[in-house]
């Protein structure tokens, strides 16, 4: 359902050209939990932006649900993001002065969903993300880091996306809380069949996924099933 074919991304600043992605090709099927791993500067963030329809490739094609989205306009990309993609960021990016519920319904506001239906959907995904019901009406800046990230995960799920993109979701969390968040992703993948792409520079984090795509200097150097998948209680298979 996701297919990248020979994707190049070139940044031009003045006369200097920087080729960030070099002929990247891969496929992700529905229901997969994939980690894209690489050191900083490897192009993994750029790849995530392209996968998330925040940016378009310079060359090559990107198919999302059989639709080629590589050459769409800003507004068309906004529509794709609204309907098919959920983002989880390293720094949560919640609206600080708004309640948990308000944060979660925000994507539905832009999708023009009526008020009652929004709240209903938001409560379902908040439960899925594992946030206690007593926090629904708290302001988001009164929550702990782990709770904030769960709100962000719920926000990413609320529009029922084809793809959940998580960009270093544990980067701002301590190990223990990070573990809980990764656990949440595993559960979403296993129990709710969500397709998840996790971007990280840590092998340890990547090892929570089913499959790891290793990218260095804009090229895929390794793409295969994760044979040592870490599980909820820290065990490896």
């Amino acid at each position: 359902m996701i297919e990248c074919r020979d994707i190049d991304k070139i940044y031009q600043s003045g006369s200097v050209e920087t080729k960030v992605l070099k002929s990247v090709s891969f496929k992700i099927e529905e229901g997969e939990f994939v980690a894209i791993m690489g050191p900083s500067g490897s192009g993994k963030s750029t790849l995530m932006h392209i996968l998330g329809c925040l940016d378009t490739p310079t060359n090559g094609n990107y198919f999302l649900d059989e639709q080629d989205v590589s050459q769409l306009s800003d507004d068309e990309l906004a529509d794709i993001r609204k309907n098919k993609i959920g983002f989880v960021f390293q720094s949560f990016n919640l609206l600080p002065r708004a309640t948990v519920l308000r944060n979660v319904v925000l994507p539905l506001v832009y999708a023009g969903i009526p008020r009652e239906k929004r709240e209903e959907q938001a409560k379902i995904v908040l439960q899925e993300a594992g946030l206690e019901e007593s926090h629904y009406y708290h302001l988001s800046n009164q929550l702990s880091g782990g709770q904030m990230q769960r709100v962000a995960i719920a926000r990413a799920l609320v529009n029922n996306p084809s793809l959940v993109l998580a960009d270093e979701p544990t980067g701002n969390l301590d190990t223990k809380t990070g573990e809980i968040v990764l656990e949440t992703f595993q559960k979403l993948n296993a129990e709710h069949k969500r397709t998840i792409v996790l971007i990280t520079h840590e092998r340890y984090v990547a090892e929570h996924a089913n499959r790891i795509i290793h990218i260095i200097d804009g090229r895929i150097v390794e793409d295969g099933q994760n044979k040592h998948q870490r599980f909820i209680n820290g065990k490896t298979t």
Partner: protein
Amino acid sequence: MIISDLLQETYSAIFMNKVRSGLTILGIIIGIGSVVAMISIGQGAQGQIQSSIESIGSNLIMVMPGFQAGAGSQVRSSRGSAQTLTREDADAISEQVSFIGAVAPEISSRYQITAKGTNTNTSIIGTVASYSQVRNVEIELGLFISDQHVRNLSKVAVLGPTTRDDLFGENSNPVGQKVRINRIDFTVIGVTKTKGGTGFGSQDDMIFIPLSTAQRFLAGSDHVSTISVQAQDSDYMASVQQQVTSLLLTRHNISDPQMADFSVMNQADIVETASSVTNTFTVLLAAIAGISLVVGGIGIMNMMLTTVTERTREIGLRKAIGAKNKDISFQFLAEAIMLTFIGGVVGVIFGWLISLLISKFGGITTSVSMFSIVLAFGVSAAIGICFGYYPARRAASLKPIEALRYE
């Protein structure tokens, strides 16, 4: 995005930073408030001048002698230079011109008047009974001149309140007493009500006597110095003016209107002239106040630009979850308009209070009209749109990736 969501976002954004929003709104309040107050002063002055012009009578057309001196005339300097209008002209107007309410010929001149050891110098108006109707003269004591007085050449006089005060003492009742005008005794039969105002010469310092008496005993001729014609309605003013002019041209055997020995003045023209003066004055005041409104608008723009910068990451997030450029620009535009709208509402109240205080303590009549309120709202909304547009566009044009990375 639906309107109620837009309003909710706008509300929370404005109330997040109460002090900053408050100060920005204050700029608009002062701007709108001063525009409303200044216009109310201008319009109050206009109303005052208008009503003072109208106190000499409503729907009035005045016929006055022209400036050509008739051959061998014995014109006195204080009278018109031509003695071409007569009582008969006035009668002809009242018989032949349609759409008129009443016609009042008059002859006026200044004389020294004495009464019981005091004396004064004032205008003597010789006129007829309909004068009181045409020129809005009301009686405080006694009676006005009647048609019978005019027929009988009665030596009776009606005093203006100021003249009464000068001759007989303040608020006295002089009815039945004698005054001596040009060595002829007149019996006082009434006193007119004070009109106040100083519009076109004080209307309170004069003495009215019957027209025939004035012509026979004082002027010694049968000309009149003014014929006041009242139209039935303001719509007929032009028509009446036209008819009076052509009638008098025929009666005076003048074929070329340029050579007319009389002039016909329309009260509406006088009002219009005065209005154009006060209009200029109002526009000037409003323009000065408008400057502060523009300054307030710049304050809005400044705040919005700061807000956009502060909320760059939030804008990035909104775009990432599917907000289109127009959603973002509407959000910021709505914020700017909301600020000016609140400023506009409070500003109108503020301006209205100022104009109340000015009329209470400053002695200047003010009037806050619907027009100035609508204008103030229109201008404040326009300012919101103009000064909010650029920051909103700037927010909308941010690239989501860069906005998300912004520190």
